[in-house]
């Protein structure tokens, strides 16, 4: 796995090395150029002095004070010179050349410089300077001719310059290496200190488990990490809620199944041990338990299919009013027995396009809940509103002792308000399943508690053919989830 710290160290060190190399190189080259420029200026001044001191007396050419001009210094060899005519014939040269020619480019009128080797293998630098010879002792007024032009080649010892450049180079290399060593040493420590908040974050994250999701990352972090810790804390909150829901679901499911399993086991053991105590009710009870468990499993599977988007949606035109009254019919006797008032508010009524099986399942659940949980003498109101693109069905009923907290958990799987879970008629899957079906149809199911204590369940469905996978409405393949058993 790539280490961010190693990567940063590598980048910093390589970057520093490249920058130091480039910087050192630039300093060296600029200094070298300046020093050579100074050397060349001095060389040219010396060459000009030689040219001014050069006189022609007939065939004899002399340089006044040439010994002074070209004498050796304390740590340098003597300069050498050679005077040549335009045709290359040597007119005069230093004795130390021992007859050797100082080679220069022919025909150049401007002074130019080059590196050379002086007698004795001494490294040197030379200048070639063209000037016109003048007769000695008189001022010649005639114009100068090209034929009078001579080239002075003057070579000078450059070892001092080379030593200076070498010293400079060594200093630059030494300084660069020292700085690089400092970078190599300091950067990891600096990074370690800078990345301490990240390490802390990592340790905090390592200490978190599914059982300790209530912990949160510290918000006392550098500004750059604040969005990360903020995002992680938001994620943890969502995870905690989700885990809590799942834990409650698992616990509720376990309890929902433990009781019927306990009933079956106890009945079987008692029947085996005391066969004479066996009654017909034992078989009926066994059947009822099996049906109850089957119902739980069917609803759970339907819920999973619906949540996984595996439902097949078959939309078709429906007359909403007749459908609702048809769904209500089996509940009417119970509502009448409980002296419940039923108010129908359907305006405007009209045709809608949706899946009839899923809609029937949802509305059946809403009506069944309303009748079961509305106290005797209470009111149930069923209202619809149909527009061009959507339709709403609201079932509102009087409730007793329902809290806002209860309403917030209505759609949690396996949640039951009766914590004893005594009733075998309910499993806490009806409303979650109804909402899942509503969402599969591109709508939603919401619950709200009115100021007057009335509970409203509002189903909103859109009439779009794009939502869900539509199939031919005559498709006979109705899965188990489409049985309408909510």
């Amino acid at each position: 796995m790539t280490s961010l710290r190693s990567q940063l160290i590598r980048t910093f060190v390589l970057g520093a090395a490249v920058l130091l190399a480039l910087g050192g190189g630039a300093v060296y080259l600029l200094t070298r150029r300046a020093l050579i420029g100074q050397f060349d200026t001095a060389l040219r001044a010396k060459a000009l002095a030689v040219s001014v001191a050069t006189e022609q007396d007939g065939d004899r050419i002399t340089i006044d004070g040439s010994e002074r001009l070209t004498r050796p210094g304390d740590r340098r060899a003597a300069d050498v010179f050679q005077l040549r005519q335009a045709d290359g014939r040597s007119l005069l040269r230093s004795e130390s050349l021992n007859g050797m020619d100082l080679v220069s480019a022919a025909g150049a009128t401007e002074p130019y410089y080059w590196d050379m080797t002086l007698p004795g293998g001494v490294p040197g630098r030379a200048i070639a300077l063209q000037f016109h010879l003048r007769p000695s002792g008189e001022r010649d007024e005639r114009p100068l001719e090209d034929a009078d032009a001579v080239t002075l080649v003057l070579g000078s010892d450059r070892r001092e310059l080379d030593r200076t450049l070498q010293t400079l180079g060594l200093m630059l290399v030494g300084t660069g290496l020292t700085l690089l060593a400092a970078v190599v040493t300091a950067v990891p420590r600096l990074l370690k200190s800078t990345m301490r908040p990240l390490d802390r974050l990592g340790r905090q994250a390592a200490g978190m488990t599914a059982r300790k999701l209530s912990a949160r990352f510290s918000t006392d972090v550098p500004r750059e990490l604040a969005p990360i810790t903020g995002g992680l804390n938001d994620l943890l909150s969502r995870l905690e809620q989700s885990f809590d829901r799942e834990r409650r679901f698992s616990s509720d499911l376990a309890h929902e199944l433990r009781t019927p399993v306990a009933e079956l086991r106890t009945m079987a053991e008692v029947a085996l041990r005391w066969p004479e105590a066996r009654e017909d009710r034992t078989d009926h009870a066994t059947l009822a338990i099996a049906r109850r468990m089957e119902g739980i499993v069917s609803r759970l599977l339907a819920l999973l299919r619906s949540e996984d988007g595996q439902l097949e949606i078959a939309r078709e035109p429906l007359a909403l009013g007749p459908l609702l009254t048809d769904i209500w019919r089996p509940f009417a006797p119970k509502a009448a027995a409980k002296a419940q008032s039923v108010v129908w508010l359907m305006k405007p009524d009209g045709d809608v396009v949706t899946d009839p099986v899923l809609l029937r399942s949802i509305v059946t659940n809403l009506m069944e809940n309303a009748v079961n949980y509305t106290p005797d003498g209470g009111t149930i109101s069923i209202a619809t509103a149909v527009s061009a693109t959507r339709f709403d069905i609201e079932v509102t009923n009087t409730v007793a002792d329902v809290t806002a907290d209860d309403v917030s958990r209505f759609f949690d799987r396996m949640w039951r308000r009766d914590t004893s879970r005594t009733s075998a008629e309910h499993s806490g899957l009806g409303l979650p399943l109804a909402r899942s079906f509503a969402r599969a149809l591109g709508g939603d199911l919401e619950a709200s508690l009115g100021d007057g204590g009335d509970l409203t369940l509002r189903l909103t469905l859109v009439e779009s053919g794009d939502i869900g996978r539509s199939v031919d409405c005559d498709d006979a393949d109705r899965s188990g989830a489409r049985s309408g058993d909510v």
Partner: protein
Amino acid sequence: MRVLLVEDSETLRHSIGVALKKSGYALDVAADGDDGLWRAQSSLYDVIVLDVMLPGLDGLSLLRRLRAGGSSTHVLLLTALDAVESRVVGLQAGADDYLVKPFAVEELLARVDALCRRAYGTKAPRIVVGDLEIDTASKAVRRAGQPIQLKPREYQLLEYLARRAGEVVTRKEIEEHIYDDRIDPMSNVVDSAVSSLRKRIGGPTRATLIHTRHGLGYVLTASEGGEE
């Protein structure tokens, strides 16, 4: 031994009821917490088998109220909640034992039996009175090494008297511990049962173990003479 079963599942109530009755316990049942509390406070029980999640008053609240009222009846909690925290909460509320659903009927009976023994200060499942031996675990009775077959109610009466061997046990106490709440208080069912039990464990050649104390009750002892 008299047991109160408080359980909201009708099926479990019936099955556990059959098992307890067939094992010789006098049984009262309640289907919710309020009824359970009323019964627990109105009668004497050796053991209460109590479901935790009940409609109305829940099991733990019932238990706390019972303990707050000074009751020391042994309570076995039945629940579908098996988390350690749930068990701890149950035991801290005053339960003596805890059984998680689903459970084996044998285990339930063994635990109820153990709680009954604790109710009378004994831990061994064997009670010996003279040449009479009672194994409360297997519900087996022997006298002078010979097995004796008893009906459940007879065994129940013998075990109760044996647990209190040497003490005078009143008719009222026998009614409360051996019979459920359907017994007619004016009947002579206790006298009949004692008479029947005497015959079963006695016989013409054996010494009487159950003695009558007129106006007081009965005592089971091997060393004392007395009226039959």
